[in-house]
Structures are given as structure tokens and as C-alpha cells.
């Protein structure tokens, strides 16, 4: 199926989902749904670097948080234009600030793309294991930096006021959900397009055997940098609306452990070699967690995710998609 058609279908499905969700008139649906759709973006983004290219990123929380904090920074600037800017320039800034969320999303994406590029440039020339560890270390360091940065609230956090209503739609939460849903469509379409393109073949070659890929003419460093930048940018885009969603942002919640583990567990449980895997993994695990959060405690919930990750990694390394493919191929060869 060609990409434009797929995009159309995806948008239609998203539209239908959105309309269906408005029927019960339950705000909670949108609150919970936002988290799941956000994870679709994160899991898909992680998978571009981790599943397609084979480079594990343990610092997804850092990219997510940078996206969130770039929003906080820009909103704070918007609130304090008159204190920060010289009097002659202030009216100019008042014209377009506070920035609308879609713009914040793009900016968050760009910032994280640059961070991903920089980090990749420093660490990708070493083995995959070094890259993975560096991402973990970087997450700790970025958290340290943010905690020490008073402008965005430091360790005491920052309040972001969410407007009550979005004109024409109803609650602001519905607007946020809709945006995130669009972002998810974008992420999935991007992942699918990459997977089937020349770039996707290059990624797969790097994942399977980087040395042989080099010898076949694949510019491995360049492609890995592309993957890191894309992956980071998407994660940043997922993080940008988060301050509006949550209202009060603390470093502990932005850099929370659940982002790191979920962005890995969801693709690995769903299946890492295609765009479908992260989607399936997120829908399953995400829904499970929303239920568990309400019924059991959130810490036990995380424990279950961790155990599931270990279990799947040992027993079903190619995830649910892999299990399905194996059974399908076994049946086909009979």
C-alpha cells in the first residue's frame, strides 16, 4: 500500500476513534487515552533507533523531558516578556507569544533532534553497548541540569496553566488528546515509510551486521546519526505538550523511570522489526497499565512491566509480531 493511501486511512481511523471517544462524555477517557497515545509515539520513536537500527536507548525519558522543558521555558518566557525583553522589543514578542502548542511541538522536536545528533556524534563511533550506557548516563546528567535550572522551576517544579476550553471542541483535554493522536499517526506513518524505504534497508543492515553493512557500502555512522536524530526529535515532540497535560511539572515526573522502561518494553513485547510491533505493544501494555494504576498501585504496575520485559526478552525475542510470524511461516511451509 502506498504511503499517501496509508496516511489517509490512518487519519480516517484516528478521526473515527476521536469521534467515538466523544460519545460517552467522559473526560477520563481522554486523560487515560492521552497517555496511551503518547506512548505510541514514544515506543515508535524508540523503535526507529532500537528496533530498526539495533542501538538501544535507555534515556528516552531524557528526550521526553527535554521536549517538556522546552515548552516550560518558552511558556515562562511568554509570561515574563516584559521583564526579560527590552521595552522596544516586548510588543513584538507579545504578538506571537504564548506560542500555540503545535509550534511548541515542532520546537521541542527540533531541540531534541539536535540533542540526539550531538549525543550520537559523540558516542556512536563506539560499540552499541557504549551508546546504550551513555544514554543512561546522559539521562541522569540532564536531570541534574534541569534540577539546577531555576528558570524552569528547578526541583520545586513549574506550573503551567491549562486553558479551560478549546473553542469549538469542548474541554482542552480533548484538544491535547487530538494533537497527540495526530502526532501518533505521524509517527506511525513515518516509521512505516522508513521501514520500506532504502533508509530502512540500511538500518536493518546495520542492525544485522554493522561490519558487513559498511563493507557493502552503507555509510553506517551517517545513518545511525539520522536514526538518533529522528528518534530523539519524535520523543521530544511527544514531550512538548506534557506540561499542559499535567499542569504541574517536576523533574521527577518528567524524567520518570516509567518512560525509560515503557519505551523499551512496549516495542520489545510488541515486536521490534516493524512499525506494527510498537503499536501492538503499546495498546496492550498501555491499557494494562491504566487498569493496574487504578486497581493496584503504580509501583507494582512498574514491577509487572519490568518482569514482562525480562520474560519476553528471554522467551519471545521478536515480540508478539515475531511469534505470529513464526506460526504463520510454519503453517505456510506445510
Amino acid at each position, binding site marked *: 500500500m502506498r504511503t499517501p493511501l496509508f496516511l489517509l486511512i490512518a487519519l480516517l481511523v484516528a478521526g473515527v476513534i476521536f469521534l467515538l471517544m466523544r460519545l460517552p462524555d467522559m473526560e477520563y477517557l481522554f486523560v487515560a487515552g492521552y497517555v496511551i497515545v503518547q506512548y505510541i509515539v514514544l515506543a515508535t520513536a524508540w523503535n526507529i533507533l532500537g528496533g530498526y537500527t539495533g542501538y538501544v536507548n535507555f534515556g528516552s525519558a531524557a528526550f521526553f523531558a527535554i521536549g517538556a522543558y522546552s515548552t516550560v521555558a518558552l511558556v515562562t518566557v511568554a509570561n515574563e516578556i516584559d521583564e526579560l525583553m527590552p521595552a522596544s522589543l516586548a510588543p513584538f514578542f507579545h504578538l506571537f507569544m504564548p506560542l500555540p502548542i503545535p509550534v511548541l511541538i515542532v520546537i521541542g522536536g527540533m531541540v531534541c533532534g539536535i540533542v540526539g545528533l550531538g549525543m550520537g556524534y559523540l558516542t556512536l563511533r563506539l560499540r552499541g553497548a557504549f551508546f546504550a550506557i551513555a544514554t543512561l548516563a546522559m539521562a541522569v546528567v540532564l536531570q541534574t541540569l534541569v534540577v539546577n535550572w531555576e528558570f524552569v522551576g528547578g526541583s520545586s517544579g513549574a506550573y503551567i496553566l491549562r486553558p479551560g476550553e478549546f473553542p469549538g471542541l469542548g474541554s482542552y483535554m480533548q484538544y491535547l488528546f487530538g494533537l497527540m493522536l495526530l502526532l501518533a499517526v505521524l509517527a506511525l506513518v513515518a516509521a512505516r515509510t522508513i521501514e520500506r524505504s*532504502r533508509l530502512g*534497508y*540500511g538500518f536493518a543492515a546495520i542492525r544485522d551486521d554493522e561490519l*558487513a*553493512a*559498511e*563493507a*557493502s*557500502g552503507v555509510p553506517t555512522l551517517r545513518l545511525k546519526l539520522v536514526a538518533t536524530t529522528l528518534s530523539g526529535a519524535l520523543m521530544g515532540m511527544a514531550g512538548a505538550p506534557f506540561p499542559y497535560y499535567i499542569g504541574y511539572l517536576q523533574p521527577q515526573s518528567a524524567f520518570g523511570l516509567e518512560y525509560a522502561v515503557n519505551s523499551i518494553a512496549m516495542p520489545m513485547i510488541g515486536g521490534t522489526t516493524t512499525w506494527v510491533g510498537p503499536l501492538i505493544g503499546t495498546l496492550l501494555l498501555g491499557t494494562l497499565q491504566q487498569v493496574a494504576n487504578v486497581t493496584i498501585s503504580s509501583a507494582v504496575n512498574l514491577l509487572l512491566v519490568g518482569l514482562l520485559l525480562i520474560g519476553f526478552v528471554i522467551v519471545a525475542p521478536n515480540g508478539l509480531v515475531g511469534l505470529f510470524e513464526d506460526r504463520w511461516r510454519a503453517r505456510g511451509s506445510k
Partner: protein
Amino acid sequence: MSALLHVQGLSKRFGGFVALNGIDLEVRTGERIGLIGPNGSGKSTLVNCICGTLQNETGTVHFDGHAVDGLAAHERTHRGLARSFQLPRPFTSLSLADNLKIPMFYTVHKRSGPLHADNIDARCEELLKMVGLDSKARHRPRDLTQVEMRKLELARAMAAEPKLLIADESMAGLSHSEIEDILALLVRLNEGGITIILIEHIMSAVMSFSQRLVVLVTGKKIADGKPEDVVRDPEVVRAYLGQ
């Protein structure tokens, strides 16, 4: 005929261990070179240094008139250098046909512009047929025997449309007729203009194929000349042949 590949004074160490010690090698366009030597003599290390998988410490490598020292392996492949790996390194998650598409997408594409999808599929089929693997085009490498994987290695190197092809022990484990087939294939490629370096232990194949024979022992080149002369060289006999 000018020198396509010119290696001068190439040395490579791993910590305290000297793998290659001042290797000089000249390969002219269109030649068929055989490279032999005992296990551990440095043949694969030499290939790795020529192709950029490893970087040499001293010495220079010139290919097609340009110095390639310091260039990454993929850039050397773009310039026309291709090799198969001694221990096959297939792309395990891709089908055989897709394995061949990688060098096509990233080397041929780079050199002569985007290929049409039909051209690519036709070329893949052609290459697989040349090595006798066309029936398994949709299979994954894990379904192949060791011997078939070596053939895939060769096909993948050929897919890069090289000027110089280095075949690293592609024939290990093949039957007599299979060896004949691969030899005939290599000779045909050579007649089409591809320079070939054949690294092998199977002496009959090397003797019938090579115009020139180079012998490597513990990192040093000890012989370089006509096959008939080299195999009679007492040092070669002592170090490698006479067992």
C-alpha cells in the same frame, strides 16, 4: 595495464602482536591473483586493512590512483573495492534477495544513480542464479547451509559491481563440481573486466585460477610470482606446502 591496487609497507599490530609486517603488493587491472598462506598468517587482516574494516598503522594503500588510507570501509566500497568475508556475515533478518539489495542501494545507487525497482529485482535474480541460489531467493540466511552462505557472501560482494573483488575462502566445504562452478564464475567475471584476488587453501583451485601467486607467512610476504615458480620456492614449501 596500470596498478589498480598498490599497497606499500603496510603494517598492522594488535597490542604487542604484529599481524602484518611491511607488506608490499601491486595488483594490475584485470589480473587474477591468488593469495595463500597458513592460518593466522595475516591474509584476512590484510584484506581488512585494504578494504578499510581495519586501519593500518603504517604504510599506504592506493586504489584506482587515489590514496584510500583513512577512508571508511563504505567509501572504499563506493570506489569499487568489494570483498566477501571468510566467516559469512549475512544480514539475518533479510531474505537472500534483500541481502543483495543492500550493496545495490548503497553502492551502485551512489555510483550510477537510482535504479528502477524492476531492474533491482532482475539483477538480484541474476546474481542468485549465478551462484545457484535463485530457488531460495525468498528464504532467510538461517535456512542456508554453510556452503550456501559462502555463495551468498560472494553474490553480495558481486552485487556491489566492484572493480576489484577479494574472495576470502569462498570455496571451503564445496564439492568438486561446486568449486568448478565458482571458478568458472570468477573467470567469467574477470573476463568481464573485474580484477580478482582469490584467498584459498584449496591448492588445485588456486593454481588453475591464478596468473600470479602471493604467499603470506606470519605477517610477511615471502613470495610473489608465477604460480609454477612459487610452489617450487623452497621457503614456501617449508612454510606452507611441504607438510
